[in-house]
């Protein structure tokens, strides 16, 4: 088995060679700490400032509103815990949704155990949040609304601008987890009406271990990390110069080719779904059929465990996920699939394929060719599959 078909771009993306190239000098001869006063370090400070300006320009922010972090999880944690702490005198109520990433949900749970009240707004069968649900959940003591732009499992795109208008009217801070959206959807913090926004470089062909939080000017947030005075005293830790340089380059590349990538990946995604649904019985699409990220396909198959499909596809050189990579190994069914109304026993039979820049028509056709025999074999072994199963009559 020589061929590797990578279809797990929502989990991580390969670092773009152009990104690697701009990072390398900052990991070798230009290794200086940008917080120092000599030239070797100051060159790093200059290039970090350039990266800050480039990223700010892309998302229509001011450079002073960009704070570099270790990734999306840190940015999400910082936004939620930092706002809850800094605004605790105003109130201790926060709003999120039932389908957020664990970096948001676990932060909310942490606060809940410490006396905060959390409202989790529901989603419809496609994973969409009704902005009016957010409006109804607002209270005088609400300090933060945190909603993701696009879901990491089913790719559903949420009406962020509408929610932003509601939070602005109410004078409540609005955080958006844009980890899956960055590089795939246009981002403009003014158009979206957000106060905080999280991103992670490795989701858009940048390096792992670096991300950012956009933090609107004059927004009070308690620091999460304490130590040196980096990031204008709000995020301690030695500046990750190569990572930041790489992230800025990756975002620039993604922004320049966004439309081209989106059109191509959506066409391949649709080809994959058409091929799979034509060749396999009792296969269902999870999530909204239209309002989803261009490269995202999430399906469930009656009578099979998702992880067994992942392992058998791996033997064919195809990399996909059951649910999200962040919960791989968990015996719990996906909270996202449960939230959109899929029963636990069916949620276990789900598979996520997320296409990216390297995905070709041949890759998609290879998947369409090798997957049906795998499904047949697994169903033959399955104690919960029967040829005349009633579950096949659904959907």
């Amino acid at each position: 088995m020589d061929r590797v078909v990578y279809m797990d771009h929502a989990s991580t993306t390969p670092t773009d060679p152009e990104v690697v190239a701009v990072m390398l000098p900052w990991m070798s001869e230009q290794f200086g700490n940008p917080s120092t006063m000599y030239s070797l370090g100051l060159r790093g400070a200059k290039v970090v400032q350039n990266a800050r300006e480039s990223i700010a320009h892309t998302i229509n922010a001011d450079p002073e509103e960009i704070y570099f972090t270790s990734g999306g999880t840190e940015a999400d944690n910082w936004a939620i815990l930092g706002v809850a702490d800094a605004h605790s005198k105003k109130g201790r109520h926060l709003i999120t949704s039932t389908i957020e990433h664990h970096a948001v949900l676990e932060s909310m749970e942490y606060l809940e155990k410490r006396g905060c009240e959390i409202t989790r707004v529901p989603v419809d069968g496609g994973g969409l949040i009704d902005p009016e649900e957010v409006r109804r959940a607002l209270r005088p003591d609400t300090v933060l609304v945190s909603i993701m732009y696009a879901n990491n499992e089913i790719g559903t795109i949420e009406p962020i601008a509408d929610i932003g208008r509601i939070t602005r009217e109410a004078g409540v801070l609005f955080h958006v987890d844009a980890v899956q959206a960055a590089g795939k959807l246009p981002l403009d913090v003014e158009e979206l009406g957000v106060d905080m926004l999280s991103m992670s470089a490795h989701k858009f062909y940048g390096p792992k271990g670096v991300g950012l939080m956009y933090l609107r000017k004059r927004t009070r947030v308690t620091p999460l990390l304490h130590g040196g005075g980096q990031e204008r005293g709000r995020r301690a830790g030695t500046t990750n110069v190569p990572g930041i340089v790489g992230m800025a380059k990756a975002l620039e590349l993604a922004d320049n080719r966004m439309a081209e990538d989106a059109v191509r990946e959506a066409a391949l995604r649709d080809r994959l779904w058409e091929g799979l649904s034509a060749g396999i019985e009792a296969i269902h699409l999870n999530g909204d059929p239209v309002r989803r990220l261009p490269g995202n396909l999430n399906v469930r198959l009656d009578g099979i465990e998702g992880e067994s499909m992942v392992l058998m596809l791996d033997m064919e050189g195809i990399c996909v996920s059951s649910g999200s990579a962040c919960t791989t190994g968990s015996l719990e069914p996906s909270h996202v699939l449960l939230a959109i109304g899929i029963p636990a026993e069916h949620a276990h039979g789900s598979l996520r394929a997320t296409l990216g820049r390297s995905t070709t028509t041949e890759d998609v056709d290879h998947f369409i060719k090798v997957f049906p025999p795998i499904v047949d074999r697994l169903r033959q072994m399955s104690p919960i599959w029967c040829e005349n199963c009633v579950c096949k009559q659904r959907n």
Partner: protein
Amino acid sequence: MTKDLATNKLPVFDLVRCKQCRICAHFCPKDCIAFNDEGDPYLARPEACTSCRMCEYMCPDWAVSLEAPSEGQPDIEAA
């Protein structure tokens, strides 16, 4: 596909912002968007629009917004 979240709303194109890239039409699942002789987009089939918002989400120039039809414009519910 649901259309409950933006019921009665239809895409409106800001032709000052629009750079005529046509991605709105590409992502329209119902082929509702067409282009005039100048290359500007317009909603050719309002009755087929499901208010899915993909034209709005994918527009790199923030030139599409969903708005309730004003008087004289087609009403999505009536269509």
